[in-house]
């Protein structure tokens, strides 16, 4: 099992500890990760999509071409990149006229989109690995840990492009949580967006969305929150520290990327996967680990 490993910008340049945990965990369960020479920003789903949708598809197509040359499906661990690359891949395969226009542009850099690969997210890849195989590698089942999952928007929607899990009532991330022995709790506002897309124009209101979500997660007495997107990660891990609540103590909810939780269950130590680099301390969670 080998994948062209598309890291994007946010993880290697801002959250390298997630890259570390992901590499360790995936390799441990037998996934070979191939680095992509010359890959760039996916195409950027917020600003560039909003300014010029075809430019967005164009930049994404270049990255798809690199993987096509490697003859490997793409694994991306950022939901923003996932939406971008998947939209480009699906649309270019579906719409011949779009493909023609984009390929004309790509010819300027000597590339051509052929439609020979697939774009996958980390949950999809882990499901391909198989629950049995992952289970066989687990060293530290996370019994008694209450996890609030946040699947995030672009992992699921728009569903006619993404076609992964139920767009409004997803279950696959929760299955993977239970696979590790932990409990995936139900909580209100589970599908509420992290607000990253609003940050550029209204930071205060974007933070308000974070606060709404953390409020209910705190009330649900979760031990930690699990995300699969660096945008969501930054919203909940970093923004959490910036929120000051009236007559209430500051939030203190550990936020983990799924591969980090997986790494812990696989027996890696918190220090080797760099959990100390989280802005919100993960100590309360580590103390509860069996």
């Amino acid at each position, binding site marked *: 099992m080998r994948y062209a490993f598309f890291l994007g910008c946010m993880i290697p*340049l801002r959250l390298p500890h997630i890259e570390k945990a992901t590499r360790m965990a995936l390799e441990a369960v037998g996934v070979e990760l191939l680095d992509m020479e010359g890959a760039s920003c996916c195409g950027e789903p917020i600003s*560039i999509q909003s300014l010029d*949708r075809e*430019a967005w598809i164009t930049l994404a197509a270049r990255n798809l071409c690199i993987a096509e040359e490697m003859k490997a499906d793409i694994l991306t661990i950022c939901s923003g990149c996932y939406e971008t690359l998947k939209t480009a891949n699906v649309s270019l395969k579906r719409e011949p006229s779009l493909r023609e226009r984009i390929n004309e542009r790509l010819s300027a850099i000597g590339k051509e989109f052929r439609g020979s690969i697939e774009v996958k997210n980390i949950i999809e890849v882990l499901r391909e690995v198989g629950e049995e195989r992952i289970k066989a590698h687990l060293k530290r089942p996370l019994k008694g840990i209450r996890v609030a999952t946040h699947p995030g928007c672009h992992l699921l929607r728009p569903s006619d492009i993404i076609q992964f899990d139920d767009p409004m009532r997803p279950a696959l991330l929760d299955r993977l949580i239970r696979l590790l022995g932990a409990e995936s709790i139900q909580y209100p506002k589970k599908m509420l967006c992290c607000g*990253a*897309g609003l940050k550029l124009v209204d930071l205060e209101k974007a933070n308000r969305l974070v606060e709404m979500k953390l409020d209910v997660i705190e009330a649900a007495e979760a031990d930690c929150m699990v995300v699969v997107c660096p945008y969501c990660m930054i919203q909940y891990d970093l923004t959490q520290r910036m929120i000051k609540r009236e007559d209430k103590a500051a939030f203190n909810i550990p936020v983990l990327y799924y591969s980090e939780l997986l790494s812990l269950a696989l027996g890696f130590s918190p220090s080797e996967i760099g959990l100390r680099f989280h802005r919100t301390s993960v100590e309360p969670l580590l103390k509860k680990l069996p």
Partner: protein
Amino acid sequence: MNEEMPEDLEVLIKEKVVHCFQCGSCVGSCPTARAIPEYNPRRMMEELILGRWREVLSGRMIWLCTLCHTCYEVCPQGVGISHIIVELRNHAARLGLAPPEYLNNVRQVASTGWTSPLTGAVQRIRKELGLPEVKMARVEEVGRLIELTELRRMMEEKPG
């Protein structure tokens, strides 16, 4: 704004937006509407149907969508509101109405290939974690492609 309605916007309204029967499913499911009560995608669709597209394009509202695509999923009439909003933003951007923060992002990508700079601090952390050095993007290819798109004109017109 004196422009005639762009043709593809007209097609979009005629084929998709007209089906909106103002049920409010979009508003009910919208994260931004929770944080910003004035934000109302249902109203935006009504304005488009009634020909007030200029007001919509020039307003701030279209830029408040998080693109979470929840409205896209819940709309009973298949209007595809979040896609409509992307189209509206594209049109507004062509008319020079994009927020400067968006254009700054494009400049960053055009010059480095990434949306974020590679800082010394991150390089140190990577080393500490035993991660390989960040593979450099082929920025000249990215720049060349951006040159071929409308982004180029947008960046020229309004320097951030």
